[in-house]
């Protein structure tokens, strides 16, 4: 039982990390808290479904197009809306929140709710690891998350664009003096965040079914992981994913599935009381602003 719990805890952590990655990246680079993140996730999932079932496209094509469209949606959201309210924190939050709301509730209204809305898994097979059945999809999630994290690390450490992102994340004003266009970087940041949400959706949604409710769930999870791990810190997000993933899974196995949400809530409150800026958070209260 222990081995099984550990394995599923690992998978749970990978899922959380995958979900939180995009939100964290967008915020870390451009300071935009994208409250429409959950909506993008759901948008990508429904996109694939629609392309497969209504346009008759093959799975691979549907996935690629849907991810592309979601990325485009992110870029458009920045270019059309966010750019006009740049710098006003109040308006930014409300704007992204409103857009997320519109997308999710539109899907709900149009009736996209039900068990038939599922995405196909990439493989039907399952393996036996340490005496537990693990389906291929879940293994794929872990593998993909690891690949994504390493890919992102390589990107931000070895490509010029990635280094530009890190520069802006560390100190925006200095980075700007090097001639980087803040709008372009922000558009990219929001788009990449949306793309990551789409990728996460494509591989995680097959585990269950799509519903607009998922959008809010994903947003909550991403927010909780980022708050606990520290907004803007990739290491923090990964650590937090592991902490919450394992805590949830072990609570589920040994105490009872009702308590998992309480554990998450308790973890959140504990972090807020002990280290409000998150485990690896770099939010300094006053020093930065003098």
């Amino acid at each position, binding site marked *: 039982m222990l081995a099984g719990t550990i394995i599923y805890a690992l998978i749970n952590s990978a899922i959380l990390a995958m979900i939180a990655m995009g939100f964290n990246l967008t915020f870390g680079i451009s300071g935009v808290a994208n*409250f429409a993140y959950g909506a993008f996730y759901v948008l990508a999932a429904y996109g694939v479904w629609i392309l497969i079932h209504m346009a008759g496209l093959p799975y691979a094509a549907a996935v690629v197009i849907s991810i592309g469209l979601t990325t485009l949606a992110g870029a458009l959201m920045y270019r059309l809306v966010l750019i006009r309210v740049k710098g006003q*924190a*109040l308006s930014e939050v409300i704007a992204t929140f*409103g857009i997320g709301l519109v997308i999710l509730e*539109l899907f709900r*209204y149009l009736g996209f709710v039900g068990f038939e809305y599922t995405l196909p898994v990439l493989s039907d097979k399952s393996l036996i690891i340490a005496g537990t059945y693990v389906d291929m999809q879940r293994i794929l999630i872990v593998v993909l998350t690891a690949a994504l994290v390493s890919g992102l690390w390589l990107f931000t450490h070895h490509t010029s664009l990635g280094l530009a992102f890190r520069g802006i994340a560390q100190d925006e004003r200095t980075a700007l003096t090097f001639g980087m266009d803040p709008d372009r970087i922000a558009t990219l940041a929001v788009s990449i965040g949306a793309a990551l949400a789409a990728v996460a959706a494509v591989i995680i949604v097959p585990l269950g079914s799509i519903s607009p409710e998922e959008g809010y769930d994903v947003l909550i999870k991403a*927010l909780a992981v980022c708050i606990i791990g520290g907004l803007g810190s990739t290491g923090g997000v990964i650590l937090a994913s592991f902490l919450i993933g394992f805590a949830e899974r072990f609570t589920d196995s040994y105490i009872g599935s009702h308590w998992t949400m*309480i554990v998450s809530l308790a973890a959140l409150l504990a972090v807020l009381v002990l280290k409000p800026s998150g485990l690896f958070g770099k939010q300094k209260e006053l020093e930065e602003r003098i």
Partner: protein
Amino acid sequence: MKKRKERIDRGIRARSQDIFVLCSWREMLYLAGPRLLPIAVCLLLPLVLDTYWQKVLLSVAVFALLAISWDILAQSGMVSLGQALFFGCGAYSAGAMNHYWGLSPLLTIPLAAVCGGTISTLLLLPVLRLRGIYFSMVTLILPLMLVRVIEATKIFGGTEGLSGMQPLPSVWFELYLIVTVMLVALFGLRRLLDSDYGLVLKGINDNDRAVINAGINIYWFKAQALFIAAGIAAFSGAFMTHVYMFVGMPVFALDYSILPIAAVVVGGPGTLAGAFTGAFILVPLSELLRGIGGLRIVFYGLFLVVCIVALPEGLFHYIQRKYHQFERWVEVDA
């Protein structure tokens, strides 16, 4: 010949700016009118509306309180995405006090307002020191998390909630209580925000370094603003518990978080009157649109985005401007 638009204060406004306004009934009416009109309307409406629209008025007042509460927070630099948190805390406090201890609604409602306000403030205290975005995030997820906790642990009645609360003495009592509280909150808090205390709060929002430099503990002030706003929202939650005679998970629903924001954005942030105006417009509107079901929230969302981007000043500011100033085209010298 080029022209430009010029805005000038109306004569009557200029004349009513100082003490000599007391010499003329017209000028006094100019000043008092905008204040007396909503009071009169609100106090007379319950008498002329039928039962259905009386319930709508109840709703309007509740959401007006939530919107006012949101506006106070926004002016102090805190953007709340979870008015439902305060609403729900108040609702459950009142429900619990009535259900488990049998206290009368006349006691539970004020107590729950304080209790709900305190709990919410304590929950949010740690994030007051951080950047504003943390406040928004935590207010968003706390109600959603609390719902799931209640569902899982089945406390306070779990998914079924607590029912069989004591009602308030009469429908008239309900209506006039909430309308009076709403008006008192509106005018009282406007007064507060216009005073020096309010200036400190707005100062914290604008340039907190300067306020710290004056020896003022900004976190204490923010906590006070939070408590006031949370208390008001908790009051409306407690009130509704006794109107419906039921409290359950729906009190933490997103609806209670979103509509107040939409109301303030439409009415105009920064003056509590805008929140009030917005609520008066959106709640009846949403009743009329009941037919289209879920599309309502889609509209709110669209409304929100369009208003915040294109018309940030809001309806109330627009009306106020028209009331105080007039515009005309003047020639521009080359």
